Every structure is written in C-alpha cells, then in structure tokens.
C-alpha cells in the first residue's frame, strides 16, 4: 500500500518584489511529504528554505512576496482557502516551531496562559490544566513550569514549551525551522532526542528546515537539498549520504567536519552563493561547480528522477 501523500508543493515560486528588482527566493520547486515522515529541507542561508517553510502556512506578507504554484494539504489547495479557513489550518492541522524560542513566546504572559490559547475558549479551566500538563509531560518539563514567565526558563526549556504547544492540537504536520540552531550543543542533543521521541510516539509528520546536515541525518528519513532557490537533490537520507549525486550536495557533505578525525585542510566550496535578484544563467551552481560543462552555463538542468526515489537537477547526472 502506498503511503498517503500529506503535503505536496508543485511548481512553487515565491518572488519578492524589491526596489532593486525581483528576488527569486524560491523558483519552481516540488516537494512532497507523506504521512508519518520526517523530511529534511537542507540549504544554506538565503537559499529560500525558510521562505518555503513559511509559504506553506501562508505566513508571508504579500506584497512584497508573490506566490505562484500550488501547495496541497491532503489534496486541498491552501491558496484557495479563505482567511478564516486558513486560520483553522494554522495551529490545528499544521504547526510551526522556530529557531529562536525567546522571540515566539509572549514575555508578559505565563506559560500556562500562552498554552491555553492553543486550546481555544471552548474548553473548561480544569480540562485546560489537564491538557497542558499532559503536553508538558510529553516534552519532559515539570508541571510547575505552567506558572513561570518565559524569562524564568532557559533556552532549551523555552524550545520545549514551543514544541509542547506545537503538538497540543495533534496536528498533521509540524514545520520546524532551525529548531536547534540557537541552542548549545548539549541542549541541542536533548532537543533532537526529544523530537525523535515525539515523532515516534505521535506519528506526526515533520518538515525540518535546517542548514545543518547532522541534524537532518539524526532525525529525517528523507531530505531535500536546496541551492539558490532551486531544489538540487532529493532522496532517502541514507542514500544521499552514502552517494550524493549533485556536486553541491557532495561538496556540502565534504564540509561537514568529523570530530573523530582530523584532516589537514578544511574543505569548502570555492566562491560564494549567488545574489538571487540576479542569479547565474543555466544551472545556478555552475560558477562554483568543478564539474561544470558548457551546457551548465546556458541551460537549466531539469528536475528528474535519476534512480528509484532519487531526484536530482544536474546535467552531469542525466
């Protein structure tokens, strides 16, 4: 039996109209998440991964953002929903956690009151406490946290509160935008273990937006790699790690330093990421690519299934 498709983005384009021109933050990408899957969206700063994550919930102000293409959640095109209907998707069916937990908690409300907002007004006070207590248990926080203000909690605890809020409504999908980037390494390990446990227990689907390959490798079964507003590679995390097809993915993998092994020269990719207001012609990676041929400079490589379940956009692979 085929696993059900939960979220699908098709030909998604997000252009920002700015004073200096049109910035093509996301330029024609396809993405699929099946029920119960954790999918990594890997890319460097400015590649459009956060824009893509935000656009799913229609959280981008438009203008300046101009969105074309479609995002389907359980077959429903989210662009066609009214603002009221969209509000029922946000926080209910699809939730989101962010990089800096301090920014997303209200500093003047107690944790309990903020979490109660997730439940809505129709629930009684007693039930609210039970529900909140249960969510706090799930994320390994003491119930006394309910009476605290955000500033009384550490960064790791705040991220746990946000995760608790994001799973309270039993959503179909959680979008996690760099959930561990702002945290210390020992706390990052705690939060990743927690996410892993929650995914296992609740069967929630997760879109994990990150720049960090090791975070993807820890919890995501599948991964999409983005570069300069385009998808460059997709496949099972294991298979991408063992044999990256796209030169960018390959280069990026080489840049991951292993603490257990020392190499003389730290690897990097020559050059710098392009300006998305004026991206290079052809393949957007060609100015930094060691394998580039003439065709790469003029023609854009198509997004094709190179092998079973392995997608790539590169002329050298096709």
């Amino acid at each position, binding site marked *: 039996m085929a696993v059900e498709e939960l979220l699908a983005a098709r030909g998604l384009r997000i252009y920002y109209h700015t004073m200096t021109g049109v910035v093509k933050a996301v330029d024609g990408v396809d993405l699929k998440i099946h029920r119960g899957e954790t999918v990594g969206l890997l890319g460097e700063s400015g590649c459009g991964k956060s824009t893509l994550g935000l656009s799913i919930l229609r959280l981008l102000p438009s203008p300046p953002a101009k969105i074309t293409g479609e995002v389907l959640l359980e077959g429903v095109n989210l662009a066609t929903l009214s603002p009221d209907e969209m509000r029922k998707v946000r926080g209910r069916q699809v939730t989101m956690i962010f990089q800096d937990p301090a920014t997303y908690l209200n500093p003047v409300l107690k944790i309990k009151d903020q979490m109660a907002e997730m439940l809505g007004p129709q629930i009684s006070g007693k039930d609210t406490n039970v529900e909140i207590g249960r969510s706090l248990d799930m994320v390994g926080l003491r119930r006394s946290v309910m009476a605290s203000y955000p500033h009384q909690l550490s960064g790791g605890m705040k991220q746990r509160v946000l995760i608790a809020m994001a799973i309270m409504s039993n959503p179909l999908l959680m979008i996690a935008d760099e959930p561990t980037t702002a945290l210390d*390494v020992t706390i990052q390990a705690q939060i990743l273990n927690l996410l892993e446990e929650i995914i296992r227990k609740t069967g929630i689907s997760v879109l994990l937006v990150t720049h960090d390959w090791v975070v993807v490798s820890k919890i995501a079964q599948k991964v999409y790699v983005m570069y300069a507003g385009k998808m460059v590679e997709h496949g099972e995390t294991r298979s991408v790690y063992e044999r990256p097809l796209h030169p960018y993915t390959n280069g990026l993998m080489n840049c991951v330093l292993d603490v257990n092994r020392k190499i003389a020269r730290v690897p990097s990719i020559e050059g710098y990421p392009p300006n998305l207001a004026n991206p290079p012609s052809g393949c957007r990676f060609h100015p930094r690519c060691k394998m580039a041929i003439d065709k790469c400079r003029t023609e854009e490589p198509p997004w094709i299934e190179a092998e079973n379940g392995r997608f790539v956009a590169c002329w050298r692979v096709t």
Partner: protein
Amino acid sequence: MTEWLLEVRGLKKYYPLSTGLHIGGHREFVKAVDGVSFNVREGEVLSLVGESGCGKTTTGKVVVGLYEPSEGNIFFRGEDASPLAGRVPRRERQMVFQDPTAALNPRKTIFDSLNRPFRAQLKRDASNEEMHQLMEDVGLVPPEYFLHKYPHELSGGQKQRVVVAQAIALKPSFVVADEPVSSLDLSIRGQILNLLKDLQRKFNLSILFITHDLAVARHVSDRVAIMYLGKIVELADSEEFFTNVMHPYAQALLGAALKADPKANRMTEYKPLVGDVPSPINPPSGCRFRARCPAAGVKCNKGELEPELVEFRPGHYVACHICA
C-alpha cells in the same frame, strides 16, 4: 623553559548587576570569568571551547585588552599587559569578531574600514602597496574591485575576510578569533578557517580561537582548553585531548557532537547531559559541574573544595575530583 608569548594568571572578570537601589545591601556580580590561567606559545593556535555564557568571549576580550580584568594578571612577552599599565602596544593584540556585518561600519567603504587601524595606531594613511598586499593576504582579489565597495555589497564570507584583514593590518603577534566562522555557511566556513591557518603560518601568529564547536577546534588548534561556567576544566594538546578526553563535561561535549553518517547517529543512543548551565551569579560551591555530572561523587558536593587544574599527563590538565 618555554618562552610564552602570553601568560594569563588567575584572571577574573565580574560584571556588576544593576538591581536598582542599593541601600545598605550588597551588590551582586555576574562571575563571567572566575579564575582562569593559561599560556599561549609563540605561533600556536589555542582553542577555547565552551557553551554560551561560559565566559569564553569575556576571556578573549580581557586578554586582548578591551576590558580591564577584575582580578588577575596578563603578561605579554613578560610585560604586564593590562590596559592601564600601557606597556604593550594595542597593535600587538587584535580581535576578529563573530558577526562581520556588525563588526564593519555600514557607512564606510572597505578602504576606509581597512585604513582605520593605520590612522588610529600609526597616525597615517595606509600606502597603496600596503592596502593591496593586505587585500591579497586575505584573498580579496582583485583589490580594486573590493576597496571602494560598502559592506552590504559583499557576501558574509567576503565581509569576514575584511574583518580578518583589519585584524592583521598592523602585523600583530597575537589575535583573538571569537567564533569567526559560526555565522558563516558551511560551504564558506572552510575558506575562512584555512585563511586563518595560512596567515598564522605566514606571520607566525598566535591565535586564541574561541568556538563552541569541537569539530572546528580539532581541525584548527594545537591545544584545546574547555571552559565551563567561568573556569577552565580541561586543557591539553589537541591530539592528546581528542584521544584521551578526561573531564566528564568534555566527554559530554564530545558525545553531543553528531556524526555525518545517519546510520551512526541512529544506532548510538547517546545520553545528552541533563539540565542547564547554572547561573554565573551564584555558581555552585564544590564542583561547578556536579549537578549535571553523571560521575559526581561526595567529594564534588556542596561545601567541598573546588577542583583545581592538575597535570595528569605531561601537558594534559584536568580539574576534576573524580578523574584524580
């Protein structure tokens, strides 16, 4: 006897807390750095590794002379290096900051930014050759293309090269690099790390490399020091450290460093440290790490002596009662 370029002895830096009126009350302090001693050799890279709030950046700023220490001494080539003593010229010690966008003045061109050190310290403008040489040293070629641009026209990696150029402009012998790559993308990180390495060899620089990332520390440093809550808990030669790590905190840091291999990450059930770093206003007595330490025993308890840095093997220092 080894000739140390920099000696730090019992360094403390306390920040006063402003908690309103103090009528007869005592003042509270954030003990950011609470008794740190280490040396830096000529031409070596010493990494100072720790989590946020452990005092590593404060240590760097005091050592470079940006802050006055609350207690303790810093000697530079044997001379008292505190800013008040004024015996060591500023240009000998420079700093590379974490966020190049914040470190560069957005309203000055790259030329102006690089000219600043010359004007401030040497009271003259940089010559054309000096400027071109500097740009070439940090790999910003052709120089003419970059010199008259503003910071916002450059990418993060290019800006960090400019910040490095500022630091080495006056040929210092000691540079504090404070998380120089943590705001950069992975594909750019290697460029800047290799640049620092190359400059270090070329000018026989000593670098105090501040980072939270042990994998980066392993690749750049000759020696590694681990800080926790204002104290150094372990200090050793890099290879010695990574093969024979001793302090439970250092072991936990190493354990938390994920591997690139998805298989390895899923198979190993690593146990992250429980809890959070305690407040540096009232650090725990006894061993500061005891509340989170998986190996803590009676000797580490409240009211007991704080563990001192002890040499376990030649050059390998650890501050831990349990390791002893």
